[in-house]
């Protein structure tokens, strides 16, 4: 099992390691500053952290082996060409900025050493060929006519939070967009198509509920060993795909609630996935003040409600979309919450252990 992971929080980045059977927190970095995303690249052991300064913008940092964190190039939108009309959020009637608002997703691109994908708010996807030293906006997606249908969700503007690179063919990449559905390329970004067919949005009028371009998947995760199987924790519930993200089916019952943000999928078994339910939708607290994890092992036909070791009274934790992770064994999971709790399990969620009760609000956890 993985004995090390990173915790990205509203007030800095931390490393958590297991030695002699106990967990300890170390290496605080960027203290006081929001760190929305962190990535450990197993190809060269480089670590990346996105830092979101309230006043001075977003920055990207990299730490190579045995070195300190160093600021590298932040993805930047190219100058907006003259004559290109502004895109207006179709619901809020507010102009979508042509400028980086936040880095929301970072993933390796297996096609070449050091290559990276980066998803952002307000909806641009970037690619780096050189470990984040330079970035290029993926213009076929940014310029796609249907981007005008995207809209803000929890954030003011739409954004890419999930980047699923197909392990069989790295030219195929699926993106989760909130709110813009699911987008797939089969040619490494040259062309894109919408694939959120089957997702349902009851925050829209009934006749618009199945419109794919306004779906709000909160998080999409793909099974590495069975990449045809993907799971989406959507604003409206849980959806699964068994055809590589081409279509989606709603899972209508999943324990106390189907609302939530995070999803993790077993690395070998695409029928096993974990969720952290909450009360839909503005309330966003655990049902009855009891923090639980729900787990299916049969493709969504049934769910276990896992609560051993988790607070069962007056718990108001929410687990954000990137704050639940599973390691390569499928047995160890970690989750961090909005109230600074950090929990870990070594038995696929049957029982949980507390690592900390007093971290800053957790944005992301990732195993090394």
């Amino acid at each position, binding site marked *: 099992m993985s004995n090390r992971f990173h915790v990205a929080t509203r007030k800095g980045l931390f490393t958590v390691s297991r030695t002699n059977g106990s967990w300890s927190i170390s290496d605080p970095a960027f203290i006081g500053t929001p760190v929305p995303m962190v990535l450990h690249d197993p190809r060269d052991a480089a670590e990346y952290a996105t830092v979101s*300064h*309230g*006043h*001075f*913008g977003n*920055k990207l940092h990299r730490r190579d082996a045995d070195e300190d964190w160093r*600021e590298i190039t*932040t993805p*930047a*939108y190219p*100058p*907006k060409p003259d004559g290109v009309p502004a895109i207006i959020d179709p619901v809020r009637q507010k102009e979508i900025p*042509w*400028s*980086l608002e936040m880095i929301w997703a970072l993933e390796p691109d297996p096609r070449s050493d050091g290559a990276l994908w980066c998803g952002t708010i307000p909806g641009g996807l970037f690619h780096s060929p050189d470990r984040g030293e330079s970035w290029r906006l993926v213009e076929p997606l940014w310029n796609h006519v249907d981007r005008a249908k995207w809209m803000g969700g929890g954030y003011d503007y739409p954004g890419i939070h999930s980047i699923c690179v197909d392990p069989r063919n790295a030219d195929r990449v699926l993106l989760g967009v909130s709110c813009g559905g699911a987008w797939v390329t089969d040619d490494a970004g040259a062309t894109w198509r919408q694939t959120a067919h089957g997702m349902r949005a009851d925050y829209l009028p009934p006749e618009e509920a199945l419109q794919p371009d306004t779906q709000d998947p909160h998080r999409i995760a793909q099974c590495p060993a069975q990449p045809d199987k993907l799971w989406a924790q959507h604003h409206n519930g849980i959806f699964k795909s068994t055809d590589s993200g081409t279509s989606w089916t709603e899972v209508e019952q999943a324990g106390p609630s189907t609302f939530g943000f995070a999803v993790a999928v077993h690395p070998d078994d695409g029928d096993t996935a974990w969720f952290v339910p909450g009360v839909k939708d503005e309330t966003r607290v655990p049902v009855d003040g009891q923090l639980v994890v729900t787990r299916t092992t049969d493709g969504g036909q049934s769910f276990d409600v896992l609560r051993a070791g988790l607070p069962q009274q007056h718990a108001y934790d929410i687990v954000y979309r990137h704050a639940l992770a599973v390691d390569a064994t499928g047995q160890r999971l970690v989750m961090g919450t909005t109230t600074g709790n950090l929990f870990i399990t070594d038995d696929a969620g049957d029982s949980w252990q507390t690592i900390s009760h007093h971290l800053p609000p957790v944005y992301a956890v990732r195993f090394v």
Partner: protein
Amino acid sequence: MARLSFTANLHSHVACPDRELSARTVRELLNAYFDEAAEVRSYVLDDQGALRKHVVVFINGVAARDRTHLSDEVPDDATVCVMQALSGG
């Protein structure tokens, strides 16, 4: 020559010592500074070259008005301060 300085809070993120520079506008002044310290640029301006929304430029104590094109004039011997706004914290 105008004297350009930055909020102390920025010094903790990137080296940005005071400098005296010749410029007619805020844009010219900042560009002259960034010519020698390119790493400071993205802390002050967004990727489209506009002033970050939670950053303020004061010219002799008066906030610059043009946050997009940075066309406010910089008088000779002006004191120009790049500060963080009260918003955005």
